[in-house]
C-alpha cells in the first residue's frame, strides 16, 4: 500500500462563498495525520477570501469544482464529481465534517469508489500504514475502532471534537480547477424553508449548548434558557422528554433520536440524563448539570453539579455570566 497521496478535506461552506469554521478542525486533523491536507471545494460560488482562509488553516492546495450544478446540493452530483476527481488524483483519504450534506454525499462517494466509510469519527491514529478511526457506537456506550481494506479512506468527522488548526496569516494555496464532468441530477430542488431564527447558534455547531429537560415544566419556560443563551452565545436544546411532551420542536432534540453535539460546554437544566440523551452529548468537554434530584443519572457524568431548583439557578447564573462577561 502506497503512502503517497493527499488527505482531502471536502469543504463545508456557508453557501455564500466562505468555508465554515469546522473546516479548521478537518484540515487540522488531516495535517496532524501527516497530510498533505488538500481542500476540495464543490460550490457554485467560491471566493478569494475563502481560498485564503483554507490556506490559513493549512490546506496546501485547493481543488476547486465551481459549477452551478453543485448548488443547491444534491448527493448524486457531489458523489459523481468527487469520485471522478478521486479516481484521477488518488488521494489516500477523503475527510469531511458531519453535516447534512456530507454524511450523505461521502457515503455515496464511498459506495461509488467501492471503499469503506467511517461515519461520525471522533479520533484517528496511524497504525503502521493503516488508518484506524474511533467512533462511538451503541448510544455512545462503547467505542469502535475501525480500519479500511483499501484507500481512499473515507470518513466524516464529528464537529467540535478535533483540535482546530490555528489560522495563520500570509499563507497561500495553489488553486487547481480540474475539469470534471458535472453529472446531471435526477432530483430537482424545489425550495428551502428556513427555520424561524432564534438568533442563537445552530445546535451542532455551537461551542456552548444549554439543554432543558422535563424539569422545565412547560414550553413557556424555555425563554429563561434563551436569555442565558443570548448572554453566553449558546444554542438551546432539549431532551426527548421535553420534545415528546411537545414543548420544543424536534429539531432541538439532543440525543439518540435527535442531534449529536460535542460542545466545549454543556449546561443541562432539569435533564435527568437518560441513556438516550447521554448518547447525544456524552462527548461534550465540560458538563454542568442542575437538577433538584441528587440521584439524577446525569450527575454521574457531570463535571460540575448543583442540586437545586433550576428556576432559582437559571436567573442567578445568567446574572453571574453577565457580570463575568461584562468585565
Amino acid at each position: 500500500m502506497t503512502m503517497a497521496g493527499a488527505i482531502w478535506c471536502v469543504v463545508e461552506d456557508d453557501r455564500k462563498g466562505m468555508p465554515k469554521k469546522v473546516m479548521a478542525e478537518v484540515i487540522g486533523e488531516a495535517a496532524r495525520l501527516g497530510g498533505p491536507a488538500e481542500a476540495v471545494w464543490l460550490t457554485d460560488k467560491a471566493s478569494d477570501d475563502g481560498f485564503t482562509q483554507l490556506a490559513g488553516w493549512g490546506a496546501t492546495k485547493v481543488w476547486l469544482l465551481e459549477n452551478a450544478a453543485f448548488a443547491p446540493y444534491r448527493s448524486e452530483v457531489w458523489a459523481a464529481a468527487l469520485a471522478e476527481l478521486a479516481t484521477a488524483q488518488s488521494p489516500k483519504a477523503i475527510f469531511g465534517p458531519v453535516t447534512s450534506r456530507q454524511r450523505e454525499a461521502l457515503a455515496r462517494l464511498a459506495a461509488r469508489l467501492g471503499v469503506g466509510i467511517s461515519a461520525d469519527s471522533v479520533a484517528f491514529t496511524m497504525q503502521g500504514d493503516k488508518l484506524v478511526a474511533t467512533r462511538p457506537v451503541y448510544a455512545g456506550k462503547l467505542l469502535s475502532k475501525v480500519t479500511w481494506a483499501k484507500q481512499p479512506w473515507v470518513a466524516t468527522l464529528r464537529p467540535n471534537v478535533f483540535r482546530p488548526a490555528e489560522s495563520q496569516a500570509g499563507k497561500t494555496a495553489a488553486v487547481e480547477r480540474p475539469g470534471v464532468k458535472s453529472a446531471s441530477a435526477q432530483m430537482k430542488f424545489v425550495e428551502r424553508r428556513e427555520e424561524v431564527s432564534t438568533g442563537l447558534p445552530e445546535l451542532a455547531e455551537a461551542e456552548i449548548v444549554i439543554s432543558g429537560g422535563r424539569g422545565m415544566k412547560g414550553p413557556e419556560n424555555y425563554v429563561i434558557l434563551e436569555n442565558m443563551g443570548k448572554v453566553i452565545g449558546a444554542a438551546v436544546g432539549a431532551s426527548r422528554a421535553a420534545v415528546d411532551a411537545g414543548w420544543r420542536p424536534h429539531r432541538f432534540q439532543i440525543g439518540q433520536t435527535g442531534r449529536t453535539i460535542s460542545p466545549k460546554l454543556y449546561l443541562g437544566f432539569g435533564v435527568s440524563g437518560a441513556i438516550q440523551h447521554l448518547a447525544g452529548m456524552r462527548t461534550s468537554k465540560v458538563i454542568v448539570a442542575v437538577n433538584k434530584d441528587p440521584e439524577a443519572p446525569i450527575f454521574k457524568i457531570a463535571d460540575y453539579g448543583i442540586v437545586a431548583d433550576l428556576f432559582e439557578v437559571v436567573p442567578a447564573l445568567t446574572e453571574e455570566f453577565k457580570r463575568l462577561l461584562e468585565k
Partner: protein
Amino acid sequence: MKILVAIKQVPDTATQVKIASGGKAIDTAGITWIVSPYDEFAVEEALRIKEKRGQGEVVAVCLGPDRAKEALRSCLAMGCDRAIHLNDPGWAEADTLTTARALAAVIKQEQPQLVICGRQAIDDDMGAVTAQLAEVLGWPCAAWIMEESVDADAKSIRAARQVEGGLEVFDLPLPAVISAQKGLNEPRYPTLKGIMGAKKKEIKDLKASDLGLPADPPQLSVVALEALPPRPPGRVIPGDVGTAVKELVRALREEAKAI
C-alpha cells in the same frame, strides 16, 4: 405502488452492552432486541402511503442472523404485507457497503417504486446505507426526511430533508430511496389482530448465493470495541444557590476554561 422498507434489528437503547471475548463484538447474551426506532418511522410511512393510495404492497427486508426474524415479524404485525430475511453467516461482519449491495440485489428482484430506510441504525450509528444503496442502484436519494408526498401517478416523490437551519425540499423521480427522520410520523402499535395475522404472513429467506452475490470481505472492519475512557470525577457544588452559582462560574472560568 410497491414499497420496500429496509430495517435492522438492534439492541434496545436501555440494554447494557458488554464486549464479547475476542473484543470485536458485543456479548449478545441477555440483550433485548428491537426494530431500530428510525426504521419504525420508515415502516409507518410506507404503510401510510399504501393506505392513502388505497392499494399497493409493503415489503420489509432485514439483513441479520436468525434472531432478526423477530424484527421482521414486528413489521408484519404493524401491517407490512410480507418480509424478506437476508440471512447468511457470510454477512456476519457486513459493513454498510456489503449491506447496501445485498439490499440492492433484492431490490432488483422485487422492483419496488420506493425504498424507505431509517436515517441510521442505533447500534453502529453509521447512517450510510441509504445513500450507498441509492448509489449502487443509481437512484436518487434524500436522507433525513421530515415530510413526503407521492404524486398521483406514482412517478415522483416530493421530500423535505432536515438540514442545518431548515428544510430543503426536492422532487425525486421514482424509483428513489429516502430515509426517515424522527418527526416524519408517529409509528402505530401493532394491534392484536395484526400480531395474529403476522404469524401467517410470508418471511422469505435469502442467502448471498440466492442473489448471485460474491462473498467479498468487508471494506470497513472492526479492529476492536472498547469501553469509554472514564470521565474525570465531577463534583457537586454545595451551598445556597447564590454561593453555588458564583463558585460554578469561577470554576468554569478558572479551572475548566470553558467560558
